[in-house]
């Protein structure tokens, strides 16, 4: 396989894999979805600069980049990702959003930030990923089990957040983004600056920073008390390349302080029932920027060193990374004792650090055959303070994989295997004595794929497997889950989960029916670890709480994702996209916890390539319909909320300003101020989702293109 020097990208080998798809003609169309053709063409030109001809992967990926990505910037990572079919949000009010891929989230999907597996407290449904979306040049989602390339925990899918490559040519460039919104009367701004000094050939530098600040959001008719957030992110990168060799260093810090809807912290089951009967929270309060209890304060640091070498036999990549995640959670009420209250300590605090090392060798293609072989190792330490929810632990992991590919003129195939081993050492204090318990798990992952392409169509079939060892919270939870009104118990005898996925996808591009992308999928998870209701209720000083235990069952998830763009006229595009998903616990027949309901979106976009000094003008109207969840999880406190339809509109243009191209966009969401609650918003028991939002987004690109 020939890897061109342009592959000397900012990201790791994973970034390269993601960049691969760019070389395919389908992707040219893919960038267009809602974007007017002008911008899409512009992006394509930009993209091809760093795309190199490489063998095709059989794996199906969905990708968000260029204008489609930029229009979603300024909000959370999860929200940006909902631009892809099959991705939904698991929310805890307006400030906390986690991406769900085909109904799975948390420990079952792996997020890679710049090639590094993001390691925080991802098990928590109210723990949002610590990633600045403005870092991304592209976001890619791999749906279904992807254990071979990404190891355990890539059981339900993978999110790749990939920065654009550092400069390959001397010069400087940058981007400024800003979003101002009425949802919280605040916004976000981000600046990136890249430079490659002519005096030091091969050297490239980048600095980037983002600030987000929002006050309380509002549901139709009332304020959502304490739903503001303040986020500050920064990153710096340096790369050096000479001949066949390159190195990069990257550091980023993510810091967020976020308010949690006051009404969502409740004392006991009777409080929850009172909240359900209320319709509107007991406390709404006036709009404020202040972030009070209950709140979270999270800092995530990531440092990465990466080196690569291109030889005749292939390409070698080596990556080392270090992450530290510090999460503090403050309850609604501090201690009654004045001196304790004055300390204002979090009731719950976790610090987790992670070292990762990985190396990948990509064998050069010969006679259509190519291959990838890799090794990965992880060392992780977790420490808890305050209320004990998850114990202290050390986690040691190691894995090796091999992936072989064959590419013919029309047919392609790939096969891969991987083995991982994990040692989890849990430390607990039992009456002053420290007790260590070891858990050893190992397991294989596999992948088998085929693709067939003819003219402008492609068919891909993938059969994959992945496994996941039980996490510390599933083994050891023991106590009241505040805000969930449940007492949760772990089980130290849990076995790992094994997932098997099958997917069949079809993509086609054309002139009139510009683009069709569809994927049918099914995942079966053996020994799926779920929170299963148990009897009797647990008696506490706050009354009786429902009891839940982490238990094994078997899970089946299947569905269909579809996207199509039809050019109704030279100036008018009609788009449709939807995700259908069915999930079930095979032993009880009930749905899985937090499974998103079916959803469908239709849009119309009118566009013009130029008008006076403006270019890439467009106006889009869209309506998204979310259906009622037909198969809810067992023992929910409230029935699934009814379905709803939300209208949105966007309009924008590009102005060739003296400083560089300036994109201006006006966005309107939930235009008719519809009151609704979403099934996968954990705060649907307490309050409506936010109402109408009007936002203005600008982007200025300056400097000489790379």
């Amino acid at each position, binding site marked *: 396989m020939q890897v061109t020097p342009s592959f000397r990208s900012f990201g790791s080998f994973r970034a390269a894999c993601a960049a691969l798809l760019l070389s395919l003609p389908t992707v040219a169309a893919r960038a267009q979805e809602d974007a007017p053709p002008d911008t899409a063409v512009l992006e394509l030109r930009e993209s091809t600069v760093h795309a190199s001809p490489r063998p095709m992967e059989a794996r199906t990926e969905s990708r968000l980049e260029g204008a489609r990505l930029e229009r979603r910037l300024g909000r959370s990572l999860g929200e940006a990702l909902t631009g892809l079919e099959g991705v939904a949000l698991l929310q805890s009010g307006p400030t906390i959003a986690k991406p769900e891929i085909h109904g799975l989230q948390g420990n079952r999907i792996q997020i890679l930030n710049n090639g590094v597996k993001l390691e925080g407290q991802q098990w928590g449904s109210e723990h949002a990923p610590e990633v600045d979306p403005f870092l991304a040049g592209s976001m890619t989602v791999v749906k279904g089990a992807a254990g071979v390339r990404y190891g355990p925990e890539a059981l339900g899918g993978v999110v790749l957040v990939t920065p654009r490559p550092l400069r390959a040519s001397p010069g400087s460039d940058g981007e400024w983004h800003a979003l101002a919104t009425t949802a919280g009367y605040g916004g976000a701004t981000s600046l990136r600056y890249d430079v490659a000094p002519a005096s030091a050939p091969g050297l490239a530098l980048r600095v980037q920073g983002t600030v987000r600040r929002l006050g309380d959001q509002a549901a139709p008719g009332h304020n959502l008390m304490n739903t503001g957030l303040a986020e500050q992110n920064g990153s710096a990168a340096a790369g050096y390349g000479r001949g066949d060799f390159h190195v990069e260093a990257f550091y980023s810090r993510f810091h967020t*302080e976020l308010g949690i809807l006051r009404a969502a912290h409740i004392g006991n089951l*009777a409080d929850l029932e009172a909240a359900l009967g209320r319709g509107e929270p*007991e406390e709404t309060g006036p709009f404020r920027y202040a972030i009070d209890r209950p709140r979270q304060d999270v800092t995530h640091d990531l440092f990465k060193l990466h080196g690569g070498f291109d030889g005749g036999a292939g390409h070698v990549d080596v990556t080392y990374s270090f992450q530290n995640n510090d999460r503090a959670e403050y309850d609604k009420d501090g201690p009654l*004792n004045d001196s304790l209250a004055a300390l204002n300590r979090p009731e719950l605090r976790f610090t987790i650090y992670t070292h990762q090392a990985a190396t990948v060798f990509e064998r050069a293609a010969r006679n259509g055959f190519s291959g990838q072989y890799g090794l990965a190792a992880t060392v992780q330490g977790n420490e808890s303070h*305050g*209320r004990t929810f998850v114990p202290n632990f*050390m986690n040691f992991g190691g894995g090796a994989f091999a992936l072989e590919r064959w590419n013919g003129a029309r047919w392609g195939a790939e096969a891969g295997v991987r083995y991982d081993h994990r040692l989890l050492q849990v430390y607990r204090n039992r009456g002053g004595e420290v007790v260590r318990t070891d858990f050893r798990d190992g397991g294989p992952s596999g992948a088998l794929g085929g693709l067939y392409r003819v003219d402008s169509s492609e068919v891909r079939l993938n059969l994959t497997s992945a496994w996941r060892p039980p996490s510390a919270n599933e083994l050891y939870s023991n106590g009241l889950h505040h805000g969930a009104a449940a007492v949760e*118990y772990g089980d130290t005898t849990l076995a790992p989960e094994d997932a098997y996925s099958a997917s069949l996808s079809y993509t086609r591009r054309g002139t009139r029916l510009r683009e069709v992308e569809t994927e049918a999928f099914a995942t079966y998870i053996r020994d799926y670890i779920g929170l299963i209701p148990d009897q009797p209720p647990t008696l506490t000083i706050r009354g009786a709480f429902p009891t839940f235990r982490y238990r094994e069952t078997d899970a089946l998830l299947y569905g269909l994702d579809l996207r199509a763009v039809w050019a109704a006229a030279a100036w008018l595009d009609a788009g449709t996209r939807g995700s259908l998903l069915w999930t079930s616990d095979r032993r009880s027949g009930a749905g899985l916890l937090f499974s998103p309901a079916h959803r469908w979106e239709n849009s119309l976009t009118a566009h013009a390539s130029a008008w006076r000094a403006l270019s890439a003008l467009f106006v889009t109207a869209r309506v998204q319909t979310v259906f009622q969840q037909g198969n809810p999880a067992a023992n929910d406190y409230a029935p699934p909320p009814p379905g709803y339809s939300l209208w949105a509109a966007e309009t924008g243009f590009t102005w060739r300003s003296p400083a560089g191209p300036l994109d201006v966009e006006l966005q309107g969401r939930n235009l008719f101020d519809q009151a609704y609650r979403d099934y996968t918003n954990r705060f649907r028991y307490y309050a409506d989702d936010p109402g109408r939002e009007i936002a203005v987004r600008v982007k200025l690109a300056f400097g000489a293109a790379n």
Partner: protein
Amino acid sequence: MSFKNFLLPVVALGFFACNVSDPHEHNEEELITTVRLVYTDTANASNADTVVFRDADGPGGAAPTAHDTLRLAAGKTYRVSLSLLNESDPLDVEDITTEVEEEGVDHQVFYAASGVNLTMVYADQDANGLPLGLRTLQTAGAASSGTLTVTLKHQPGLKTAGGTVSTGETDVEIAFQAVIQ
């Protein structure tokens, strides 16, 4: 977080090393583990009953170690005082009752009898003159049995004369078996 902290250099990361292998004991800062009600006959101080609910390790974990039944004499009126304790460390028992009393304007205790013939009036007030419920007068009627549910509500900014047991957030809710003989 200050701007200075935000700019903490990368090298500092290496020193974040924590004490994973030496976990602290359960150290929730403020836990109500015990509710104690002392009933004293207004006519005869030697006629008294004390009922206790105790769950020393907090919600979850080990089951509560005490959950007494209240036994009162028919036709008597009792002076009742409520105490809230943190007994998670037997060597350092904390009385949280005074903290609740100090923040009386944000708290109220509710007593609800079901099946048992028991009526109550508040015998204390917060700084705003609204009932608090740490001290009450309770009168036992005819012989009967049922439950008495004691609920401490935290009602920051929500406490009014018309407040009910469903106003605010629940800090304590215990149903005691109650018998009037």
